[in-house]
């Protein structure tokens, strides 16, 4: 290992993507992904057992794809990092077991890391050191969280989250009721481009005095509107109006948090950060408020192994103690815990 440039392999299996990334210091060398999303599509959502089976099949081949791309050997690695939570427990366990076994066989430290912290840390690969403190908004199929990040290697402080559906889940559910398939985010985003975001006034829950958000009422309102509508449903307008309501709520709360805490940096991550309207509106509102916005490229926003390797590399460089060999998979790992020991 050269100085603070550790070579770290990261494994991510918290949901339906088997991700293996390799990072040297803050440089991304490889980001291999095997997704079982097609196998889940006909069920309209991720089926845990199907995901777990796919992780097992994909694990060793995905590790080797990453090694080949990076042009390194297993024996070159300085550390192994793995998502140990939160996520689907059976899916997490495949990655955790693989990571332990590699760490044991290669005699290198093992870091069981928090999935959400990894979503934040990944931006180091694209835009350099994470500005600290920053407000991080993580929006995916499983999470909608607003966090205060003082030091991504130590602790994230939760400010607010969804009280019902996650933002991505709302996209998926609305897509389903419009018959657009799974996952819904990308299709809704695409169709919304041809729609009028002001066509339908869907409700926006922006309760005062909390950074929590809620999307279940919005989803129900969309369902009601579609059912009540006579004639052909103007799908593009529904998508655009629904999407506008979601991104309005998300960006309002994020900027409220920046203003209240006096923090000048906002970082957005998670699958929904790929949303083109969210990126545009966040930029507009950040510019107006004098907040600097960072959003990694879409490929680094969705679940991947590079984010886990990126966080692992930071942890090694910061001298944070490694995890023990009895590291559990913790499906409800709190964000206040960056490394599981």
């Amino acid at each position, binding site marked *: 290992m050269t100085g603070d440039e550790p070579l770290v392999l990261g494994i991510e299996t918290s949901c339906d993507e088997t991700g293996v990334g390799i990072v040297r210091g803050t440089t991304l060398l490889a980001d291999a992904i095997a997704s079982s999303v097609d196998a889940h599509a*006909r*069920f*309209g*959502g991720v*089926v845990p*057992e*199907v995901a*777990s*089976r796919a*992780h*097992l099949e994909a*694990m*060793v081949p995905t*590790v080797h794809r990453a090694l080949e791309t990076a042009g390194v050997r*297993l024996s070159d690695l300085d550390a192994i990092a793995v998502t140990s939570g939160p996520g689907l*427990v*059976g899916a997490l*366990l*495949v990655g*955790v*077991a*693989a990571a*332990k*076994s*590699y*760490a*044991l*066989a*290669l*005699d290198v430290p093992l870091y069981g890391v928090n999935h959400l912290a990894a979503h934040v840390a990944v931006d180091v690969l694209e835009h350099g050191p994470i500005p600290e403190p920053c407000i991080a908004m993580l929006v995916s199929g499983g999470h909608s969280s607003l966090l205060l990040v003082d030091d991504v290697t130590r602790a994230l402080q939760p400010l607010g989250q969804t009280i019902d559906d996650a933002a991505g889940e709302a996209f998926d559910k609305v897509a*389903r*009721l419009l018959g657009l398939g799974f996952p819904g985010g990308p299709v809704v985003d695409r169709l919304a481009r041809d729609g009028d975001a002001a066509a339908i006034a869907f409700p926006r829950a922006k309760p005062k005095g909390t950074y929590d958000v809620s999307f279940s009422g919005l989803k*129900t309102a969309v*369902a*009601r509107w579609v*059912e*009540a509508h006579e004639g052909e449903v103007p799908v593009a307008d529904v998508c655009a109006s629904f999407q506008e309501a979601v991104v309005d709520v998300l960006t309002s709360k994020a900027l409220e948090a920046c203003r209240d805490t006096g923090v000048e940096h906002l970082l957005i991550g998670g699958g929904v950060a790929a949303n083109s309207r969210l990126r545009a509106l966040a930029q507009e509102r950040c510019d107006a408020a004098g907040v600097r916005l960072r959003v990694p490229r879409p490929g680094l926003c969705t679940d991947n192994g590079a984010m886990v390797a990126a966080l692992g590399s930071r942890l090694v460089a910061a001298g944070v103690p490694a995890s023990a*060999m*009895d*590291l*559990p*998979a913790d499906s409800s790992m709190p964000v206040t815990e960056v490394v599981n020991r």
Partner: protein
Amino acid sequence: MALVDSGGQAVAECVVVDARRHGELLAQGIAAVLGDAGVDRRDLGAVVVGLGPGPFTGLRVGIVTAATLGDALCIPAYGICSLDGLGAGERVAMTDARRREIYWARYDTDGTRVSGPHVSKPGDVIEQLRGVPVVGFGAQVHAEALVGLDVRPEPKYPSAPALVERAVALLGSVPEPLVPMYLRRPDAEQPGPPKRVTA
């Protein structure tokens, strides 16, 4: 898990009968077994793993551990049907499959598996199992449904040294891919149309 030397002698063994904690304890157990035996991991010549049938999560932890260990140490990883490591000679090896079902396989006098592994309701297969010694904890769990069979109290579980013994014949050969014996499809329901929200 067990460490077996080239003479087929188990030199260290560690057993944890706790399906839920497999994931957490397996790697630690491997490290402990190596430590107890004073063996360096780099001196291992092969890894052997039970492919099931058994609880899916534990099965995957075992298989992915064996696959990655073999991968990192550049040694072959061989998979064996877990029931093959339960008892010896002519027998039916049976484990509990939950949901009122059993996993089972039948072996002839020289210990060759001649039927299975299967997952069945005890009542559906009891007739074909008569007259053969039945081993494994599964037979005790489902004793009421298996009245009249020649159920033996021991052994109860597949053992790692027994799995290694079965694998000896494979040593030196190119390992087959480690494909788990799930025997059941994933539980997953295809959703119906979205529920109406207005009456």
